[in-house]
C-alpha cells in the first residue's frame, strides 16, 4: 500500500479524497495555483506544492509540473479526482513513465474511452446499443450540415474529448448549426485541448442513467448499481439519485451486465462509469464511459456502504477486488444536490466572489462534501462547484423531504447559489412523481423566479440587523451585547 499520495485536483473532490487517505493512514500532498494558496484542499493536506499561475494550463492541467511535484515530495501515487487531468491519457502515461502509480485506468483504456467517437465504435462492435450519431470533420462546415440533416433535428453537438457538459450544444435547426459547432469546438479546445466534435440525435424525453463499475487488475469486474442523473441544466447534472425510479430489477441487471461487459471489452481497470440514455420504452443506449471517479459517486457510497476512493486506491495498489456481484445491493435512497456558485435567476451564470457566511447543514443521513469555507474567495478561473449535499433515507419520499430540510439549513451568503431553485425542483410535482427526464428543467423551470416568500420576515430581519448593528456603514462584529445596548440607547439619533 502507498504511504503518500498526491492529489492533482482542487476543491471539494480533493478534500474528499484526502479524507479517505487519512483514514487509510496515507499522507497527502496538495497542489495549488496562485489563487488557491489558501484554498481548503491546501489546508487539508499534509504537504502542499505551488504549481504557478491561476490559468489551468499553467497549474492544474500542467502534466510536467504535477509530475515534478510528485517526485519532489516522493509521492508514490497520484489521484486525479474528476475534471482536469483525470481523463488525460498523456498524464496517466507520464505517471507510469516516472514510476508513479496513476489512480485510475491504464492510459490505453483512457485513450479508447476518452475519445467518445472511438468508444461508440467499440461499444457498437461488442453489441451495446448506441445512440444514432455521426462523426464529422471538425473543420468542414458543409459536412456538419449534411450529417445533421441525415440524423434529423434536433441534434446534439458534443466534444469528442468531452465531459461535464463542456462543449455540448442542442441545435434545433440548420440555421443555428454553424455557430453552435464553432462555439462547441472552441469550448472543447479550451476545456480539453482538443476541438474535435461529433453529432448525436437529441432525445428530448430520455433519462440519463449511469452504471458504476469497478474492475481490478486481475480480470474481475463488478457493477455498483445505477445513478439517475436526468436533472440537468446546461447539460450538466445538478440533482442525482439512486436508485432510479425507472429501473425494474430486470432492467437494472441487464444494464449492469452491459456495463460490466463494456468494461471487460475495453480492458478497463479501476472505477469507471458507463453512461446510458434510457427512453420511456425502457430501451437504453450507450452514451460514454467516464474513466474516473464521478462527481456524483457519493450517492452510490450511501446506498452500498462502500468507499469508492478506498477501493480505487486498493485496486491501484494491485490488490484483487474482494467484492462479488451477489454481495452488492443498495439500501434505501440517496440524493445529491450540487451546490454551484451560480445564479439560477440569470441563466445559471457563474457567480464567483467571497463567501461572507457559510453554515453547512447537519443531522441524520446528511453528508456535505464541501470545498470552501467562510471568508474564501471563490476564483473565477475554475469550475463553479462549491459543495455536494448528499442525503440518505429509507425511501425516496423521505430522502426528498430530508434534502429539502437540509437545503433550508444551508446558508451561503456573499455569492449566488441554486439552493432556493433546488428546493423548488425537489418540491415540484414532476420530480416527486419520479418523472425525471433530461429536458425536465427546460420544460418546467425555464423562467424560474424565486417565490415572493416570507417578505415580512425578510424585512423584519433587515431592520433587526440594521438596528442591532448601529449606524449605517461598516460595524465591527465585536461584542454583540454591548453593541446592541448602545444602539438601542442611541436610537434618538436615527431618522424618525
Amino acid at each position, binding site marked *: 500500500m502507498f504511504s503518500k499520495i498526491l492529489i492533482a485536483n482542487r476543491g471539494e473532490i480533493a478534500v474528499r479524497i484526502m479524507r479517505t487517505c487519512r483514514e487509510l493512514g496515507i499522507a497527502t500532498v496538495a497542489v495549488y495555483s496562485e489563487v488557491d494558496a489558501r484554498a481548503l484542499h491546501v489546508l487539508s493536506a499534509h504537504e502542499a506544492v505551488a504549481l504557478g499561475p491561476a490559468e489551468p494550463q499553467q497549474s492544474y492541467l500542467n502534466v510536467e509540473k504535477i509530475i515534478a511535484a510528485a517526485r519532489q515530495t516522493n509521492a508514490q501515487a497520484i489521484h486525479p479526482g474528476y475534471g482536469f487531468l483525470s481523463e488525460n491519457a498523456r498524464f496517466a502515461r507520464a505517471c507510469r513513465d516516472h514510476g508513479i502509480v496513476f489512480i485510475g485506468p491504464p492510459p490505453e483504456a483512457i485513450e479508447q474511452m476518452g475519445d467518445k467517437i472511438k468508444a461508440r465504435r467499440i461499444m457498437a462492435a461488442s453489441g451495446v446499443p448506441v445512440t444514432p450519431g455521426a462523426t464529422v470533420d471538425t473543420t468542414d462546415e458543409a459536412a456538419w450540415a449534411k450529417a445533421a440533416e441525415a440524423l434529423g433535428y434536433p441534434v446534439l453537438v458534443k466534444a469528442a474529448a468531452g465531459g461535464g457538459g463542456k462543449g455540448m450544444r442542442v441545435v434545433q435547426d440548420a440555421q443555428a448549426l454553424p455557430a453552435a459547432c464553432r462555439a462547441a469546438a472552441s469550448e472543447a479546445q479550451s476545456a480539453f485541448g482538443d476541438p474535435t466534435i461529433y453529432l448525436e440525435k437529441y432525445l428530448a424525453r430520455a433519462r440519463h442513467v449511469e452504471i458504476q463499475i469497478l474492475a481490478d487488475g486481475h480480470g474481475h469486474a463488478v457493477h455498483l448499481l445505477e445513478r439517475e442523473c436526468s436533472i440537468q441544466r446546461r447539460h450538466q447534472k445538478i440533482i442525482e439519485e439512486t436508485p432510479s425510479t425507472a429501473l425494474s430489477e430486470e432492467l437494472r441487471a441487464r444494464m449492469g451486465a452491459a456495463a460490466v461487459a463494456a468494461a471487460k471489452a475495453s480492458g478497463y481497470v479501476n472505477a469507471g462509469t458507463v453512461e446510458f440514455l434510457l427512453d420511456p420504452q425502457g430501451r437504453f443506449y450507450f452514451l460514454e464511459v467516464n474513466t474516473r471517479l464521478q462527481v456524483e459517486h457519493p450517492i452510490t457510497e450511501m446506498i452500498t456502504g462502500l468507499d469508492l476512493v478506498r477501493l480505487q486506491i486498493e485496486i491501484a495498489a494491485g490488490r484483487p477486488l474482494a467484492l462479488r456481484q451477489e454481495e452488492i445491493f443498495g439500501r434505501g435512497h440517496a440524493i445529491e444536490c450540487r451546490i454551484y456558485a451560480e445564479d439560477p435567476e440569470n441563466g445559471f451564470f457563474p457567480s*464567483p466572489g467571497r463567501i461572507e457566511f457559510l453554515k453547512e447543514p447537519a443531522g441524520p443521513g446528511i453528508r456535505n462534501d464541501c470545498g470552501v469555507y467562510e471568508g474564501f474567495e471563490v476564483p473565477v*478561473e475554475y469550475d463553479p462547484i462549491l459543495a455536494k449535499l448528499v442525503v440518505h433515507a429509507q425511501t425516496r419520499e423521505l430522502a426528498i423531504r430530508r434534502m429539502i430540510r437540509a437545503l433550508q439549513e444551508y446558508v451561503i451568503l456573499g455569492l449566488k*447559489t441554486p439552493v432556493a431553485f433546488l428546493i423548488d425542483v425537489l418540491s415540484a410535482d414532476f420530480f416527486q412523481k419520479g418523472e425525471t427526464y433530461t429536458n425536465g428543467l427546460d420544460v418546467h423551470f425555464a423562467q424560474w423566479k424565486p417565490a415572493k416568500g416570507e417578505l415580512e*420576515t425578510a424585512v423584519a430581519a433587515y431592520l*433587526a440587523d440594521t438596528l*442591532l448593528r448601529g449606524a*449605517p456603514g461598516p460595524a465591527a462584529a465585536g461584542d454583540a451585547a454591548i453593541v*446592541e445596548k448602545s444602539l438601542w440607547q442611541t436610537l434618538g439619533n436615527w431618522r424618525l
Partner: protein
Amino acid sequence: MEYRLKIANEILPVQCQPEVQGQFTLSMGGRQVVVAAQRISSHQMALTIDGRRVMVYTSGRAEAKEVFINGRTYTISDADLVPQRRAKSSASAAPADIAPPMPAVVIKILVAQGERIAKGQALIVVAAMKMETTLSAPYAGVVAKIHVREGDKVAARQILMDIEKDSEHGST
C-alpha cells in the same frame, strides 16, 4: 422610522417603531407585527415575530443586505441610500454597455479599435468559471476605445469597450 426598502425590483414602504431593547413594531402592507430580535452572531439572529420563532442570517450593510430564511435568500436594499452610492460610481454600466454580468476573464477580443460594427455583431468573449459568453453590439457604430486586453480579469458590469453609435440609426 420610515424606510423604503427595495426587494426584487419592488419598493415597499415600511415603518419601524423601536420598543424596549431588541424589540420593535413593524408596519408594512397595512399589517402591524411585533418583532423581538436576539443577536446570536454577527450574521445570525433569532427573531420572534408575533410569537413565531424564526432563525435568520444576514450579510451586508444598510444600503444592501442579503437575508437568508429557510433556504431562500432575499436581497434587500434601502432605496434612499442606494441612489447616492450609484451617483458616485460612474463605472457602473447601463444595459447597452459592453460589460459582463459577472466577474470574468477576457478570452478573445474580436474587433479592433476604429472598426465599424453592425448591430448584434460579436465583440468580445469572456469566460467565468469555464463558461464562455460572447458580448455583442447593442447597436451599429464604430469601436471608439477598447479598455481591456485578452487575459485581463474584469469585474461584473465593468465597461470593456466604448462604441460610438451611428447617428443615422436614430436616437434610441
